[in-house]
């Protein structure tokens, strides 16, 4: 498969320990002073031109947050965060609200160009040609279809550009920044915001509710199949700035949408805070596919710097026969604390969680999922692949529960860990709880090490050591890569190769 070759090429070009997206950009910023108070929240709300109900919602969350304590149950260790030492709002000065690419600060566009994000619609339109390679790719179960992607780009605290808006609008799909949605579609936001992750949910989600600055909003009306992939790229640029994005996706009856988020940040010695909340709502017969390629700066080889990633993601299969699928490729961040979950409320609803978590250097990952079976005949599937290298710690933490009325709930869980080297750790912490005797839960877990035998065998065919490891790892994660939208599967494979750079020897 060409992707492996590309991984190899890409890895070769990079010096050890060089985070590709670590550049920072000098853009004139409009920043709130450091610290968190009701005044700061009022300022954020005012900057965003929000209605009063939104401000009240934020303030309510903030008051609640003041009563909460940081959770300590995850297997991650980091110094105490000073929440008063962070800017809660930073925006490039030239925005508010560009309506087309030509109105966007060219410096900003350069940033996205460097990130390889296809903002220019014509590039996206070009798509991927189906070529003579198709026969081979078929052999590899990996046929890349041509496709187009609508992009929303979020820079620090604001969304700077959203593409393909018109075409989406024709289909009845709303895809815009959450700030815009609050102004333009308040009835939808009011109805659904906080209905999956309430403002009282947990320390970080509550903080996010108080100070969230931007994020994406997607609404797919009844019976509509969203005509293209939707995608958001998040970037933290400013120093000492927290990124608190809020994403809300609603698929009405029979609707379908596939959404992808990507994230990067500059290379800095200080730690940056990222605390996002994502809420998904699927009504009867609706399906939402949510994919993440998370590549926040992981810190340097000594473990200095890097993003603290505390994220609450939850999907509500509110309707019967609804389906929510999470796929994540986690390669970045110094600390990852993230459990994309599904509430299987509707009868016959199903939830999926496919995850690849790669940790290297001194990264700490504590990630997994929750599958909460409430409705009848609900099913869930969890496939988690953890890869630990260097001095990293990689934990899968999952919960599967069937409530009293969840007759015939079914779950299949498979957690595999792969260790590279002998200084890293992999941990699996599954909780299972069935309050209904008809529930069927299955759990499989393996931990393996890339064996010297395997590596020797691959190298004996002329494949150099790093490429040999990349090949074996790509094989290990294949089940999950296949769940990603075609356009991003290749990207994800490259990223995994890059993340493991320097893990050998």
């Amino acid at each position, binding site marked *: *498969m060409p992707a*492996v*070759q590309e991984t*190899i090429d890409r890895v070769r070009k990079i010096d050890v320990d060089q985070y590709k997206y670590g550049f920072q950009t000098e853009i004139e910023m409009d920043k709130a002073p450091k610290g968190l108070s009701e005044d700061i929240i009022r300022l954020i709300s005012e900057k965003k031109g929000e209605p009063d109900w939104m401000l009240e919602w934020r303030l309510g969350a903030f008051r609640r947050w003041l009563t909460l304590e940081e959770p300590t149950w995850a297997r991650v260790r980091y110094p105490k965060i000073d929440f008063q030492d962070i800017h809660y709002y930073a925006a490039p000065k030239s925005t508010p609200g560009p309506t087309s690419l030509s109105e966007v600060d060219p410096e900003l566009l350069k940033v996205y160009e460097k990130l390889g994000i296809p903002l220019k619609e014509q590039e996206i339109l070009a798509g991927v040609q189906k*070529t*003579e*390679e198709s*026969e*081979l790719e078929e*052999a*590899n*179960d990996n046929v890349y279809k041509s496709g187009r992607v609508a992009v929303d780009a979020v820079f620090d605290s604001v969304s700077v550009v959203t593409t393909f808006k018109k075409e989406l609008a024709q289909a009845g799909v709303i895809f815009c920044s959450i700030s815009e949605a609050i102004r333009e579609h308040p009835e939808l936001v009011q109805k659904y915001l906080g209905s999956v992750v309430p403002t009282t949910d947990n320390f970080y989600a509550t903080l996010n509710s108080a100070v969230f600055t931007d994020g994406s909003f997607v609404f797919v009306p009844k019976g509509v199949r969203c005509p293209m992939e939707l995608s958001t790229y998040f970037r933290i640029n400013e120093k000492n700035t927290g990124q608190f994005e809020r994403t809300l996706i609603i698929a009405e009856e029979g609707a379908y949408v596939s959404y992808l988020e990507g994230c990067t940040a500059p290379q800095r010695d200080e730690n940056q805070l990222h605390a996002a909340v994502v809420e998904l709502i699927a009504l009867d017969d609706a399906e939402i596919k949510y994919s993440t390629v998370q590549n926040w700066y992981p810190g340097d080889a000594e473990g200095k710097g890097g993003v603290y990633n505390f994220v609450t993601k939850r999907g509500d299969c509110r309707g019967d026969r609804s389906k929510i699928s999470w796929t994540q490729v986690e390669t970045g961040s110094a600390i990852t604390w993230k459990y994309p979950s599904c509430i299987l409320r509707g009868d016959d609803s199903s939830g999926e969680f496919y995850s690849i978590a790669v940790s290297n250097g001194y990264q700490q990952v504590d990630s997994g999922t929750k599958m909460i079976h409430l409705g009848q005949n609900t099913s869930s599937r969890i496939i988690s692949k953890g890869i630990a290298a260097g001095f990293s710690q990689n934990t899968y933490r999952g919960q599967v529960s069937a409530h009293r009325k969840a007759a015939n709930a079914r779950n299949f869980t498979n957690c595999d860990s792969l260790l590279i080297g002998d200084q890293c750790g992999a941990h699996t912490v599954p909780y299972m709880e069935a309050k209904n005797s008809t529930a069927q839960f299955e759990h499989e877990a393996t931990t393996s090490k890339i*064996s*010297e*035998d*395997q590596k*020797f*065998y*691959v*190298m*004996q*065919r*002329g*494949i*150099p*050591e790093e*490429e*040999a490891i990349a*090949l*074996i790892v*790509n*094989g*290990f*994660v*294949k*089940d999950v890569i296949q769940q990603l939208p075609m356009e991003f599967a290749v990207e994800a494979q490259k990223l995994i190769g890059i993340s493991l750079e320097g893990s050998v020897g």
Partner: protein
Amino acid sequence: MLEIKNLHARIVDDGTEIIRGLNLTVKAGEVAAIMGPNGSGKSTLSYILAGREDYEVTEGDILYNDQSILEMDPAERATAGIFLAFQYPMEIPGVATMEFLKVAMNEQRKARGEEPLKVPEFLKRVKEAAALLNMDMNMLKRPLNVGFSGGEKKRAEILQMKLLEPKLCVLDETDSGLDIDALKIVADGVNALRSPERAIVVITHYQRLLEHIVPDSVHVLYKGQVIKSGDKSLALDLETNGYAGVIGEAA
């Protein structure tokens, strides 16, 4: 092509010396059989030729085309044209055989400064080679060696050997675990690779394989040394009289 001079080698972990002053020369175009009882160091020799790190060469040298290869890692040796057909090929989950072949072939081409193979050309070569070995193309879509039968694994080894076009082929107990039909197919595959530019070292416990791959020379390995060399009749001797006679002679 291959010249092993007074080679001494031991296991890194526990220091056990396995190869103790081994001398062997194999010329281009030659098929050399290495025979010997269990524990004589046959498989170890194949690993050392391929550059496995678990073994440490303490004395002597291995020359390949007059150059020492001791400082080269396994991938560099492979790229230089040394191929080892494993006695126990490793399973590589999630990596389709076809994909593996393509990566390996193109890595070697890249190391030689050649362009990667165009897909149609690659497919053509694979199809031809697979047909010769009586292999189903569908099998090549499966992850390499995962769930392959013993015979399928050995055939997959020969397929790789054929496609990578090595100059020095080392076959480690390629006959083990094969029934007679599979043995014949594998032997035909190897025979098709015989050429004046290529040397083939066949490591085997039994004479059986040598009925199908007729060697130019036969060397008996015992306690890490070649204790006797001869032509193909030596293999027949061993078949009839066992190793005891040869060992007794040497001692």
